[in-house]
């Protein structure tokens, strides 16, 4: 009997639940402006989420998946990315999309049931949200392969949930990323639930980070409510990928404080007590506590920021609600670069029939 391979999974936390920096922190963690900028993105994301849910409740938006409680993962990951990198989000990464330059209006247009919302004016090469869980992981490998073939120092960043790690295509994508040493960073946004299925029922693996061991590359775990740790781990993984070091899987431990979506009722399957406990660890309050203690963040600044974010959200909502509807024939016009004769006929039939 001999041992032929050994592995270990590290866990990182820099900003503790009490808002204090633990261990050694990266320079940006001491930069007040940087921290305030990150804080602002998180607050804006939460305000956007709340508004989107309100719009759905009043029939002005389709089904929506709130990211409340997961802002640190979204913002930390996206903020670490370079503009030329490509983001492949799931359906719960609004914050990351905002940081990337997708507008709140575009997000609302998409969740309002209009494909134009995925025609981002900003990050033209970022992928639209991915609804079929995990199916964007192979795309991320393909995007990363494109960068590698062109010798571009760019990285594909693919975010998916804890449930997604059970999908075979996510495994296949990680496996090829490993064997081809592709410049891709996989983020498992582990909010502990896949609709009603808890993390423990998803897999017997002690951590999701160790899924990377099967693919032959590094998997690590971070406190997903610690934006400093998330941003730092992502930055390290991006840097490694850019330097040809291949992929990394980062499991960010966080919690879905809200329902799965606006059509879900989480009280059917989880108790408020658990949710209440998790509220004590949520990322925004944690950073606010730190800003107050370490950088004199005060009531005035806080109120100004909240007001500014609310105004931005209102403006975007207004722009969304006044967006001209798309004409019905639009459903034909982007099916092919050039519409085949048969579809030209059907398009005419659609118009004739009105």
């Amino acid at each position: 009997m001999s041992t032929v391979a050994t592995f270990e999974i590290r866990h990182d936390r820099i900003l503790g639940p009490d808002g204090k920096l633990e261990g050694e922190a990266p320079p940006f963690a001491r930069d007040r402006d940087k921290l305030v900028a990150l804080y602002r993105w998180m607050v804006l994301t939460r305000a956007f989420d709340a508004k989107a849910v309100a719009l759905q409740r009043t029939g002005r938006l389709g089904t929506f998946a709130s990211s409340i409680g997961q802002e640190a993962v979204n913002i930390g990951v996206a903020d670490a990315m370079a503009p030329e990198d490509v983001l492949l989000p799931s359906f719960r990464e609004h914050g990351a999309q905002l940081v990337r330059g997708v507008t709140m209006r575009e997000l609302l247009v998409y969740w309002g049931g209009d494909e134009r919302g995925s025609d981002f004016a900003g990050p033209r090469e970022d992928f639209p949200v991915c609804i079929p869980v995990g199916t964007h992981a192979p795309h991320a490998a393909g995007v990363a392969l494109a960068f590698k073939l062109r010798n571009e120092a760019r990285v594909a960043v693919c975010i998916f949930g804890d449930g997604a790690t059970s999908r075979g295509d996510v495994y296949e994508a990680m496996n090829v990323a490993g064997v081809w040493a592709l410049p891709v960073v996989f983020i498992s946004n582990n909010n502990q639930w896949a609709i009603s299925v808890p993390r423990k029922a998803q897999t017997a693996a002690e951590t999701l980070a160790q899924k990377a061991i099967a693919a032959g590359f590094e998997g690590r775990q971070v406190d997903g409510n610690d934006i400093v740790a998330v941003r730092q781990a992502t930055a390290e993984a991006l840097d490694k990928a850019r330097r040809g070091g291949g992929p990394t899987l980062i499991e960010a431990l966080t919690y879905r404080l809200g329902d799965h979506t606006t059509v879900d009722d989480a009280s059917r399957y989880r108790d408020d007590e658990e949710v209440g406990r998790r509220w004590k660890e949520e990322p925004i309050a944690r950073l606010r506590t730190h800003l107050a203690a370490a950088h004199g963040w005060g009531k005035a600044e806080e109120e100004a920021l909240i007001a500014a974010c609310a105004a931005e959200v209102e403006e975007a909502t207004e722009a969304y609600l006044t967006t001209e509807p798309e004409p019905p024939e639009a459903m034909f016009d982007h099916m092919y670069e050039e519409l085949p004769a048969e579809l030209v006929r059907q398009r005419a039939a659609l118009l004739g029939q009105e």
Partner: protein
Amino acid sequence: MARRRVKSETSAGTGELTLVEAVQRALARAMEEDETVILLGEDIGVDGGVFRATDGLIARFGADRVRDTPLAEALIGGLPVGLAAMGFRPVAEIQFMGFIYPVLDQIVNHAARLRNRTRGRLSCPMVLRAPYGGGIHAPEHHSESMEAMFAHIPGLRVVIPSSPAKAYGLLLAAIRDPDPVIFLEPKRVYRATREAVVDEGSALPLDRCFTVRDGADVTLVSWGAMLKETLEAAEMLAGDGVEAEVLDVATLKPLDMETILESVRKTGRCIIVHEAPLTGGFGAEIAARLAGEGLMHLVAPVERVAGWDTVMPLLRLEGQYMPSPQRIVAAVRRVLEYA
């Protein structure tokens, strides 16, 4: 494992049920009758299914028989094959049809041919349930109608109920059937109407079309959610004295062409209505049979009123994609011009 009849906990008898309630009742009934029936799927346990089709079943039958699977559709297609080969009758749920594609490998390569490839030594009495179709303003990828893909696969049965009573009777038949059945539920109808359902365990045949309205002028053939639009169209036509006969295909595979031919022999005209994209939709098979065995009965072209050959749009344009009673009536008017 020996089939054991468990005494019924359900207060049998008639009740006004929605389609999704009827599905739940049929599942409960089948599980009581036969302890080899077990349910697999995402969120079917404590949550009772995202549409509540398995509501309360985990409390009644336990977590062994009502199993939340990991989020893995290829697995949901393949696990039942092993269970069925060992004598169970698994009923697996795919949460939305847009997520059903990973099961195709297992369904085509294994479930549909296990009996044949072992010359009857092993078989695969499984049911794969999935809500299909549009009309409820669901998110992207949630509103597909891909029944034609399954209807092309030898070795399967493909069933689509259009009403609560049919859902109950056809699902029971599907679960009791010794071969694999794809059971597609029109989610748009899940809560749209109530119907009296006699919950006494009697099944409906899996090889029969149902005539839901009699008429002599034109035959309207449809299935699932589109029955509603089709019947509305028939009503509108009746107002102008046009009597449409309306057939609910119900079981697409095997197709009961006799009933359709019989009607067309009478009317000479046929319109097929489905929500799936026109090209290669299952309406093509029915129209093809009419162009064959049925040709001599046709006095007018067979028209298919179907979804466009486009991606099912997001909710804003969804209504423009789905066949409407108006489109059906317009088609009927065209075929009535032939004498």
